């Protein structure tokens, strides 16, 4: 292959295509004249440079991982606006509300598996808050920060390091996301449970309402409040949750609680040899986590099925899975059930399940906690084995930090999991064009995990979609539930993407019929997710609509986000 051919491949085959005759849409329900007038006023408000209307600039706000990749019907914005301050946001919102221009706010636009920076509806103008990137306060003693939406995990991490502040952040997998955006999109991370659920770890927010007013929540309602980032509730109803996963306002500041840098870090590995061990494994894990005996991320793996958990994922994606032998291939070929792998596992002394528990704190304390975990499982489960994993005295040296395979579990942001679907040296497959995730919540019960695997894996096979593993092990970012993530790879082949688009709504419906609620899905499937919240004649989503009509009567914020549409759109749909 010549250099020129390689470069041709590199520059075209993997890139998003732009049809020569592609014309950007107008905002829904807005004529060209009104849109032009709105753009002129936006330019006056924030300067020409930050109102993007050129096609190539606006297309940078499409969904990089769209399940409608390069197909007709892909959702495209009409323009993008990037204010630098809350005053500019206020002015834009006032103009948009007056002229009925819908705005889709994004913080850094890195919610890549769930729609990225693209709106739910073509023509909606993206309100890009990336330039609002100030770290307004970090209080080391009290353990909190106050940040704007454009601040990424990398930015805050660097700020803490540069200033010698001994606080940790809790990071999701890609570190270039926004603290604010990730929290509002119900993101999560990998340190202590009270920090892993990013919305739950916030304290106080500032919101621009549809009428252009600026509101502060919690005790932030008192001018000069000294506890805005310390006390979540304030007076009367607690309203912060209204701005999470919704389209009721533009969040321009958020506070977050940060954890003190621990003295030490320890991993304790517990291996279980039998399929049925899954039930006591999870029951005791619940006790250990709910009692705070384990203080970090509980990483659940299955050596027999090759599921690496989060701590082994980056390494596995780099080196590839171990090649199965003939006996194992036979089990796979006849579609053996998970429990039928046990004789093979015992014969080859491969653990069926593995827990990698993480402990943070003073060394004496965490070693005692690890010993208690061993005592408890020894008494409860036969043939269980223990091994001490990584141990670090903190802080890490720069060399130790750079050598980390799984940095987020130590509060260090990186991008390593972008190897998921990337070109690799072991699969022989073409790289994917991204991925779309759809995520169900299971109770902390091994029986439900087994049942979900049986039912959802079969459903995926019936739809012609290859499940990643024989047994899908959950992510455990949140205490009390297991996250059952179904990852759909976006393909360069439109037929594969069509199968995905047809499968996801069916899987959501099927999961809901078993009580496995969906909490987060790609923008394309959010109406189906809404439909699954049907208790009481869909009273919950209808309540969301009531709030929408009260807080944003002209429907200017992110129409369709999580199934919440403005009143006029609902009425149009109802009339056919």
């Amino acid at each position: 292959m010549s250099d020129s051919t390689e470069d041709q491949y590199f520059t075209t085959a993997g890139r998003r295509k732009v049809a020569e005759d592609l014309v950007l849409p107008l905002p829904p329900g807005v004529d060209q004249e009104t849109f032009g007038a709105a753009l002129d006023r936006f330019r006056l408000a924030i300067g020409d440079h930050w109102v993007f209307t050129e096609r190539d600039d606006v297309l940078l706000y499409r969904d990089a991982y769209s399940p409608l990749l390069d197909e007709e019907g892909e959702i495209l914005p009409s323009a993008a606006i990037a204010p630098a301050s809350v005053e500019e946001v206020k002015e834009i919102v006032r103009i948009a509300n007056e002229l009925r221009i819908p705005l889709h706010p994004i913080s850094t636009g890195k919610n890549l598996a769930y729609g990225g920076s693209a709106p739910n509806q073509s023509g909606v103008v993206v309100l890009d808050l990336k330039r609002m990137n100030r770290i307004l306060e970090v209080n080391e003693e009290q353990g909190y920060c106050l940040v704007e939406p454009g601040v990424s995990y990398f930015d805050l991490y660097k700020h803490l390091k540069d200033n010698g502040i001994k606080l940790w952040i809790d990071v999701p997998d890609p570190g270039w996301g926004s603290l604010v955006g990730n929290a509002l999109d119900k993101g999560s991370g990998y340190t202590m449970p009270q920090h892993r659920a990013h919305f739950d770890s916030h304290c106080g927010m500032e919101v621009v309402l549809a009428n252009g007013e600026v509101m502060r929540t919690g005790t932030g309602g008192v001018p000069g409040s000294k506890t805005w980032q310390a006390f979540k509730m304030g007076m009367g109803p607690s309203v912060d949750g209204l701005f999470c996963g919704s389209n009721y306002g533009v969040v321009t500041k958020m506070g977050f609680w940060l954890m003190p840098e621990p003295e030490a870090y320890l991993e304790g590995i517990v291996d279980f040899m039998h399929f049925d061990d899954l039930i006591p494994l999870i029951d005791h894990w619940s006790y250990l986590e709910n009692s705070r005996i384990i203080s970090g991320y509980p990483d659940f793996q299955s050596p027999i099925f090759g599921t690496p958990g989060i701590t082994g994922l980056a390494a596995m994606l780099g080196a590839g899975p171990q090649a199965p032998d003939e006996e194992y291939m036979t089990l796979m070929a006849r579609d053996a059930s998970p429990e039928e792998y046990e004789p093979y596992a015992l014969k080859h002394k491969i653990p069926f399940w593995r827990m990698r528990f993480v402990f943070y704190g003073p060394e004496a304390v965490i070693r005692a906690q690890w010993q208690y975990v061993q005592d408890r499982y020894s008494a409860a489960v036969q043939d269980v084995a223990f091994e001490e994993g990584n141990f670090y005295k903190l802080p890490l040296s720069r060399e130790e930090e750079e050598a980390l395979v799984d940095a987020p579990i130590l509060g260090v942001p990186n991008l390593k999991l972008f190897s998921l679907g990337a070109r690799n040296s072991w699969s022989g497959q073409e790289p994917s064009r991204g991925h779309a995730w759809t995520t169900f919540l299971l109770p902390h019960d091994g029986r439900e995990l087994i049942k979900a695997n049986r039912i959802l894996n079969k459903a995926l096979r019936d739809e012609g979609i290859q499940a990643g593993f024989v047994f899908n092990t959950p992510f455990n970012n949140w205490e009390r539930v297991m996250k059952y993530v179904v990852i759909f790879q976006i393909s360069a082949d439109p037929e594969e993407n069509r199968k995905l688009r047809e499968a996801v709504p069916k899987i959501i419906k099927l999961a809901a019929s078993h009580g496995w609620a969906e909490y987060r899905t790609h923008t394309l499937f959010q109406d189906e997710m809404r439909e699954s919240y049907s208790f009481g004649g869909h009273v919950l989503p209808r309540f969301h609509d009531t709030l929408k009509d009260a807080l944003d009567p002209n429907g200017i914020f992110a129409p369709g986000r999580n199934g919440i549409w403005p009143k006029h759109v609902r009425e149009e749909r109802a009339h056919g």
Partner: protein
Amino acid sequence: MGNGRTNPSEDILARGKAVYEKWCAHAHAPQHDNPGTQALQAKYQGSKPAALIHRTDLTPELIRDSVRGGNTIMPFFRKTEISDEDLDALIVFLTSGSGAA
């Protein structure tokens, strides 16, 4: 440009290096487990360096197309992330050979 003690091209190189370190290095720096480095190792099988800063054949067009067009799982970058001026500086840095081993 400032106090005149600094060569403007050095300013641009420094700016380009800063853009590289903020936006590219986490995926493309030489560490073998960085996803971009892994992917380019798999693609070129050693016929070209896997790490971007070791490449001597990168053209301005290739860098521009990759940043604004993305490539497979690598998303494209908006102008609020990497401005046109930042991109020009990044091109100067990556085509300068200053990072080549």
